C-alpha cells in the first residue's frame, strides 16, 4: 500500500451471507462405497459384509465358511476391530489372506477404510472377500462398504430382544445368522420368535439358526449367499 492510501474498503466486509451448501456427510461414504463396489466387480470379487453384536460369533462364522469354501474360492478377509490383530491372525491360520483394519476408536468400518484395505491385496488373486465389521448393531447400518451382500450375526446369549431393540440394522440385512442355538434352552430363548422378529422387520432377509462351534447351519448360510 502506498503511503497516501488510508486503507481499503471492501464492499463485502462486514456483510452477513447465507451460503447454500447441501453437503451430505453420509453421501461421501456412499460414493466411496460405490467405488469399492465397482472395483470389486471389475475383478469379479464377491464381497460379503459381516456385521453383528460383540461376541455373537462373526469370526467363528467366517472361519466355518472358509473351511467349506476354500477349495472352491480364493478367499480374503478384512477384519475390523478397534485394536489387536488376534482375530486377523486366527483367520490367517486357515491359509487365506487376512488384513486387519484397526479403527482405533470408531465403532464401525467405513468405505474409506475398506478402500485402503483393498489396496493391500491383489484383487486379481481372489474371488471372495469377507469384510467383518466391528461388533456393533447400531452404527454400521449408516455406513455401506461396497459389499454385495450383508450378513448380521446375533446369538441367543444376548437375550430374546436383540432384534426388536435394533430394528434398523436388520432392514439392510440379506441374511441373519442366529448363532449359539445349542444354548437356546439354557438361555430360555425361543429361536422361532427371533426368526419371526427378523421376518416381520425385513421379509426379504433370510434368518438362519447356526451353531458355529459344531458347524450346524453354516451350509445354509452359504446357500443363502448363493456361493
Amino acid at each position, binding site marked *: 500500500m502506498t503511503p497516501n492510501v488510508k486503507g481499503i474498503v471492501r464492499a*463485502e*466486509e*462486514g*456483510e*452477513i*451471507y*447465507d*451460503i*447454500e*451448501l*447441501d*453437503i*451430505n*456427510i*453420509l*453421501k*461421501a461414504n456412499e460414493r466411496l462405497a460405490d467405488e469399492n463396489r465397482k472395483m470389486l466387480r471389475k475383478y469379479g470379487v464377491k464381497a460379503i459384509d459381516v456385521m453383528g453384536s460383540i461376541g455373537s460369533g462373526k469370526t467363528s462364522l467366517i472361519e466355518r465358511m472358509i473351511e467349506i469354501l476354500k477349495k472352491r474360492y480364493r478367499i480374503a478377509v478384512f477384519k475390523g476391530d478397534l485394536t489387536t490383530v488376534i482375530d486377523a491372525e486366527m483367520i490367517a491360520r486357515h491359509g487365506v489372506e487376512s488384513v486387519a483394519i484397526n479403527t482405533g476408536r470408531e465403532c464401525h468400518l467405513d468405505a474409506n477404510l475398506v478402500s485402503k484395505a483393498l489396496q493391500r491385496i491383489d484383487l486379481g488373486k481372489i474371488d471372495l472377500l469377507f469384510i467383518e465389521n466391528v461388533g456393533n448393531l*447400531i*452404527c454400521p*447400518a*449408516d455406513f455401506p462398504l461396497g459389499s454385495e451382500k450383508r450378513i448380521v450375526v446375533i446369538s441367543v446369549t444376548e437375550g430374546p*430382544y436383540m432384534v*426388536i431393540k435394533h*430394528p*434398523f440394522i436388520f*432392514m439392510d440385512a440379506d441374511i441373519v445368522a442366529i448363532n449359539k442355538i445349542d444354548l437356546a434352552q439354557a438361555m430360555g430363548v425361543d429361536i422361532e*420368535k427371533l426368526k419371526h*422378529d427378523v421376518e*416381520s*422387520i*425385513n*421379509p*426379504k432377509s433370510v434368518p438362519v439358526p447356526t451353531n458355529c462351534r459344531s458347524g450346524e447351519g453354516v451350509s445354509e448360510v452359504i446357500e443363502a449367499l448363493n456361493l
Partner: protein
Amino acid sequence: MTTQIVQSVLEEAQNHGAKRVIEVHLILGSLTFLNPGQVRFWFKVLTKGTIMEKSRLRIKRKEGTVRCDKCGYQGNFNYKDDPLYHVPIPTLLCPRCESMVEIIEGKECTIKSIKMFA
C-alpha cells in the same frame, strides 16, 4: 460424525472468506443413528477456538419415508404391533398392499446452509 460436520463447515466458510460463522443449518434423517442432543454437545466442544465458536446449530429432523413400487404408496413407515412384546416394530412391508417397500428418505445428514460474517 460431528467432527466431519465441523470440518466441512470450516472448509466451506474459509473458502467463502468468512471471518465468523453465525449459524449452521443441518438436516438429520430419523433413520440415521445420530442423536440431535449429542450432535449439539460435540458441536459445542469441537467448534471451540475456531471461527465457528458460539455459532447457532439449527437441526431439522427429516422423517423416514418409504415407497412401494407395487401400489405406489409413499409415506411413513409401517409399524406392526407385536402382541407378544406390546411394542410397535418398524417393518419394510407396505402399509397398503404388504409388498416390500424401499427406503427413500430418512438417512440424511446434510449441511443445508451456513450463515457467515465476511
